[in-house]
């Protein structure tokens, strides 16, 4: 088992695939939020976990952290730093989803716009998805070989 783990961690194709999957996912995830920050802010409010004064700032800034770190992963610019940021976000998402799952918190505003934003999808699949992403992210972080398709010396 230990040997298998080592092989997986050292496989540059897995690293390459994981980096691209995470990169594309985070760029894609940032897109809707950048186009509709007000809707995203309302979703953040719906979690009822954040101080009111920070909700808008999170809604403005988080999508750009997703975009920049996603781009950095795909282009291979500071990939280790980028994946650490992404792992941090995934960990935060996992904690937020778990907290609300455990306390059985549901927020349904019945508004057209928020429904459109897909808020009503349930937390469990999102949680499982984020855990899989985090496993990919850990592989990218721990990989110590030569990374494929990275931008020259910057990598």
């Amino acid at each position, binding site marked *: 088992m230990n040997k298998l783990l080592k092989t997986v961690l050292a496989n540059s194709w897995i690293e390459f695939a994981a980096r691209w999957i995470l990169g594309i996912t985070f760029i894609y995830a940032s897109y809707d939020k950048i186009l509709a920050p007000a809707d995203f802010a309302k979703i953040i409010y719906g979690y009822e976990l954040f101080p009111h004064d920070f909700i*808008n700032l999170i809604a*403005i800034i988080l999508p750009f*952290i997703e975009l920049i770190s996603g781009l950095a992963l795909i282009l291979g610019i500071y990939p280790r*730093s980028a994946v650490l940021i992404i792992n941090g976000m995934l960990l935060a998402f996992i904690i937020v989803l778990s907290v609300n799952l455990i306390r059985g918190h549901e927020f349904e505003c019945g508004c057209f716009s928020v429904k459109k934003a897909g808020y009503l999808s349930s937390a469990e699949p999102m949680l499982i998805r984020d855990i899989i992403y985090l496993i990919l992210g850990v592989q990218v972080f721990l990989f110590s070989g030569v990374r494929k398709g990275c931008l020259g010396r910057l990598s």
Partner: protein
Amino acid sequence: MDNKKLIKKITLMLAVSVGLALIVNYFSPVGIALIGQWDKSQGVITAKAKNDVIVGKLEIEDVKTAKQIYDIGKSLFVDARSRENYEDGHIPGAVSLPLGQFDELINAFIDKHSLDQPIVTYCSGRTCEDSHNLAQLLLDFGFNDVKVFIDGLPGWEAEDYPIE
């Protein structure tokens, strides 16, 4: 790789993200205020657009006032929620004009009602902005007496007022 370098690069990337985010938000037509209105006791929650359309003056602050306006009988109550929600229960006499179908329904609405008709919009209470957006759209179309009943149907129900 030493940790200092890693932290430096992370800081750089975060700084670029924050800078870019604030610049884009500043110039974007869909940009929002840096601090929103998320206190339900202060009215409807909203991220607040920079060019905020939500006019506080239009708001009917409490359910009893809304009921008085309703009892006078001159105002048309307009339900901004989806048609299904409307059919599940609405304020008696209210007409349905879902915000999401505004474009297709507004012409028929204008044919039926004069621009001087006093209107009160509502949706599902203080977590819902749709009634504000609907009010703004109606004002844009020339209706000159539009108010927003911010407690909406949940507030109405809580006072045991009739629903049909």
